[in-house]
Every structure is written in structure tokens, then in C-alpha cells.
């Protein structure tokens, strides 16, 4: 408990330090930035490039569209966008998690599958996301499952899962293979079949490898969802908001920073969700040699 309190304190302190550094840079560095021999070494620090922290926070309360009939504040817009994207990212994480775990089980069970599939699993991640996004959106547009027409957000979720499955399948495979030979032989000597050995030995032993993998996958799913929203032009999420607000950034940069702040909070919430998973599985997290 004490160590958890310390973690919270450290995190809060780091946040305060970041804000202080930002404001200090504005205060100390010249507004035009630092340029040596025509090369800009430090960015401009005027209000157009680096708005004050409190300006960004105040912006959250301002109406999104000045004088509109429906006076929705920017804060509400960012929050609902972030929530929408969070849903898609978590959906993608679950989808990718299921796919990754199944793939890892297949590779653990059949050495041939590992040799055949693993290179493609790795190759899949070298294809740029921006190249895949229009493909998925394009394919999705052509299919309808049981009368349900493909929605743009489904493409986003699939793309997020495409990024999330990779760390999970690799981490899970390593975890499933982590029990030492002696433990596997012990189970064999007890006449334990593949399923029982999986349930009682390999799955529990894989938790210390799985939790960090899910943490990576959650971050990848959030980034994937945001990028996918942008490259497929899906509306309603934080990705779209960042683009929209960025277009007005020349006049009002604080609005874009508000959206970026929303994306950062979104990432923290996703990481927090994994923290809950970690807490639930802490029994299996101990020292596994």
C-alpha cells in the first residue's frame, strides 16, 4: 500500500514538473526561439506555438463553435471523442488479444505452425499502418455480416486490433514456452494431457510475460485507433478532432493542445485498465524462474 501511494505521488510530481518545465521554457527562452547560423535549435515559445497551460485548460470550457445554437464546450467535445476512441481501442485490444492468444496457442502446440506463422506475424508489423487503413476500410465497405452493414468505426477497431495482436501473440508464445523442462516432465509424469498442462502450468506461467505484452498492446491499440480514424476519415473520435482543431491551430493553438491532452488522458486510461488486469492476476505474477 505504501509503495502504491508513493507511485501516485511520483506520478503527480512528474506531472507538476512537466507543467513547470513548459512554463519555465516560455518564461526564460526568447519568444522567437533560438537560431544559430540559420538553424533553429529551439522552437518558438510565443503564445501561438506554446500556449500557457492555463490557456489550454480554460479552452476546455469554451464553446466549440462560437455562437452556435448547440453550445457544446471543447472539453465535452474532447471527452466524448476520447471516449469514442477509447471504446474502439479497447474493442481492438480485446479482438487482437483473442487473436494473439489463439495464434500463440497454435504456435505452442504445433512447432510446424510456429516455423510457418511466426515470420509472417513479424512481417505483418513492418507494413505501415497508413497502407493498411484504406485497404481495411475498402474491404469493409464491401461486406455486410448477417444483414449488418459494415460501419467505418469497425474498420478502426480492426486496424487497432491489427496492432494489438502482435505484442500479445509474441509475449504469450514466450510465456507459454517459459516453464522449465523439469516442470513439463513433472506434468507428463502425472499423466497430464495437453489441455490440463496448458491450464495448470503454461497459462499461469505465461502471466508474467502476458501482462507487459498487454500493456504494449493497449498503447498500440490507442495509437492504432487514432491513426486509423485519421486515415479512414472516421468521425466522432479524438483522431478526427485533432485534425479539425489542428486546422485552426494557426489562429488558436490552445484548441489543438486541448485535443492532444485528451489523447494523452485516453492513453493513461487504457494503461490504467491494464493495471487493473495486472492487479487481478497478481497471484501469478510472482517470481517465475
Amino acid at each position, binding site marked *: 500500500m505504501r509503495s502504491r501511494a508513493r507511485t501516485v505521488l511520483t506520478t503527480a510530481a512528474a506531472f507538476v514538473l512537466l507543467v513547470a518545465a513548459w512554463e519555465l521554457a516560455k518564461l526564460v527562452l526568447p519568444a522567437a526561439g533560438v537560431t544559430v547560423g540559420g538553424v533553429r535549435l529551439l522552437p518558438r515559445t510565443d503564445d501561438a506555438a506554446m500556449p500557457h497551460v492555463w490557456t489550454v485548460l480554460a479552452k476546455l470550457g469554451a464553446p466549440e463553435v462560437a455562437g452556435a445554437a448547440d453550445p457544446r464546450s471543447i472539453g465535452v467535445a474532447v471527452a466524448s471523442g476520447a471516449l469514442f476512441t477509447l471504446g474502439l481501442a479497447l474493442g481492438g485490444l480485446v479482438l487482437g488479444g483473442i487473436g494473439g492468444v489463439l495464434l500463440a496457442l497454435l504456435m505452442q502446440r504445433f512447432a510446424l505452425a510456429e516455423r510457418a506463422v511466426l515470420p509472417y506475424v513479424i512481417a505483418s508489423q513492418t507494413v505501415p499502418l497508413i497502407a493498411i487503413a484504406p485497404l481495411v476500410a475498402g474491404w469493409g465497405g464491401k461486406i455486410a455480416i448477417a444483414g449488418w452493414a459494415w460501419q467505418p468505426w469497425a474498420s478502426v477497431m480492426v486496424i487497432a486490433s491489427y496492432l494489438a495482436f502482435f505484442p500479445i501473440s509474441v509475449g504469450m508464445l514466450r510465456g507459454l514456452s517459459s516453464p*522449465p523442462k*523439469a*516442470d513439463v*516432465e*513433472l*506434468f*507428463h*509424469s*502425472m*499423466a*497430464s494431457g495437453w489441455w*490440463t498442462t496448458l491450464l*495448470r*502450468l503454461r497459462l*499461469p506461467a505465461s*502471466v508474467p510475460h502476458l501482462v507487459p505484452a498487454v500493456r504494449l498492446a493497449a498503447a498500440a491499440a490507442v495509437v492504432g485507433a487514432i491513426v486509423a480514424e485519421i486515415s479512414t476519415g472516421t468521425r466522432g473520435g479524438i483522431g478526427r478532432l485533432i485534425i479539425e482543431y489542428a486546422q485552426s491551430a494557426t489562429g488558436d493553438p490552445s484548441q489543438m493542445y486541448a485535443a492532444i491532452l485528451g489523447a494523452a488522458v485516453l492513453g493513461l486510461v487504457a494503461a490504467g485498465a491494464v493495471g487493473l488486469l495486472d492487479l487481478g492476476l497478481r*497471484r*501469478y505474477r*510472482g*517470481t*517465475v524462474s
Partner: protein
Amino acid sequence: MTAVSLSGVDKSFGEVRALDGIELTLGDGEFVSLIGPSGCGKSTLLRVVADLEQPTAGTVEVAGKSAHRARLDQEYGIAFQQSGLLEWRTVAENVELPLQVHGMARAERRARAAELLELVGLADFAGSRPSQLSGGMQQRVAIARALAPSPRLLLMDEPFGALDEMTRERMQAELLRIAGESGAAVLFVTHSIPEAVVLSDRVVVMSPRPGRITEIVDGRRPRPGEATDLAPDDVEDVRESGAFFSAITAVREALRKGDAV
């Protein structure tokens, strides 16, 4: 009935002949040690009995069945040098493991685990994690786990090899008591001559390249309630008796003879 019966057992790993013409029988409740230099095939022999390795030739019977059938029926329990306890399970849950694998009901296996922890003197540690226990205690848990399905045979591959000398002697006394109370036969692989002598009814001396049995020497296992001047029933008395030292000498000479061949 015999606990183990090996006849004409050969085992080759490619060119290497690990076992050659092994003939050995263990009676019910008998304690037999396998001793010999590294590479003499004593661990391989144990693994053949456990159905973890398939013999190249010969027949292996455990409790009157094929080694394969015996493994499926949990006729033997096994303990290695590393205790191999699962860290996410409590001590009691580790002992329950073989019973759980065989689908025994929870209440029944709880009771059995409590009984076994009592037997190995760890009843107070049922809810502890393995890492909270000392090396000797972990090894006792591993023995309790091996005994959980009430096997006819206990296979042990240098179970005390990683323990310090004092703990080791205490564990030997414990093992003798436990083996006596459970009535299981024990096939015990060791590097230590005194350990083999003090524990065993018979000490099987092996030699390498190819792995063969060179001689079988009578051990000095104390028999509770059957004490004579020559064969005391207390382990400590055995360790100080003349018969103990003469048996050690006999094993040592057998090992040297095997080496010379």
C-alpha cells in the same frame, strides 16, 4: 508383487549406449539406490522406469504393468533435484496437484494434502508460498506431492543434491520415516556413497560407457523395531556403526572396479 521389474533393458542415444542389459527388480517397499560416476546412465534408468524415456530394447514393468500404463495410472511419484514447486500455488495446492490432474474432488484432495503435510511435518505451512520455505522444506513438499496419489513407487533423482550437509542428513532421516510409513518402494539416484548406504536395502553400483550394473551391495537401511547390535534401527546409530563403514568401503571398491573396466 514387485514394484519394478527391468529385464534386458538397453537404451541408446544415437551412437551412445546409455544403458546396456539392465536387470533389476525392486520388491514392494524396498529402498534401492543407484550410484555411479556421471554418465553411467543412472538418471536415464530412472527416466526409463518413469516412462519419460523409451528403452531401445528390453521390458520395463512397474507395479505389474507396462511403464506407460503405470504412468497413466499414477503408480509412481517423482521428485527431482529441483523441487519444481509452482510459485502461484500455496504449499497445500502444490501437494494437491497430481490429485487435481486426475480429477479428484476438491474436498477429498484437501483432506489428503493435509494428511501428507502432516506426514512431512509441514502442517503449519499449508497456506504458505513455496518461496517462503527453505530448500529442505521445499524438497519435503515435493516429496509430499510425489506421494499424494498413494503410489507404489517413489522415484527420486538426487533430491537432496542441492542441500547443505546438515539439512541433507536430516532429510535422509525424514525420508526413511516417510518411506516406511507410506510403504512405497523407492528408487533413488544419488552421487553420495554414505547417503546410498544409510538409506538403502540395496545399493546398485553402475559404471559408464556403456551404462551397466557392476555390482549390488547390501545397504544399511535401519529397520524400525528390528534393531540388532549389527543393524541399529536409529539412523544416527547406523551412521556411527562399523557395518555402515564396511558397507561404504564395499560400495567404494565396487565403484573403483567399475572404473577400471
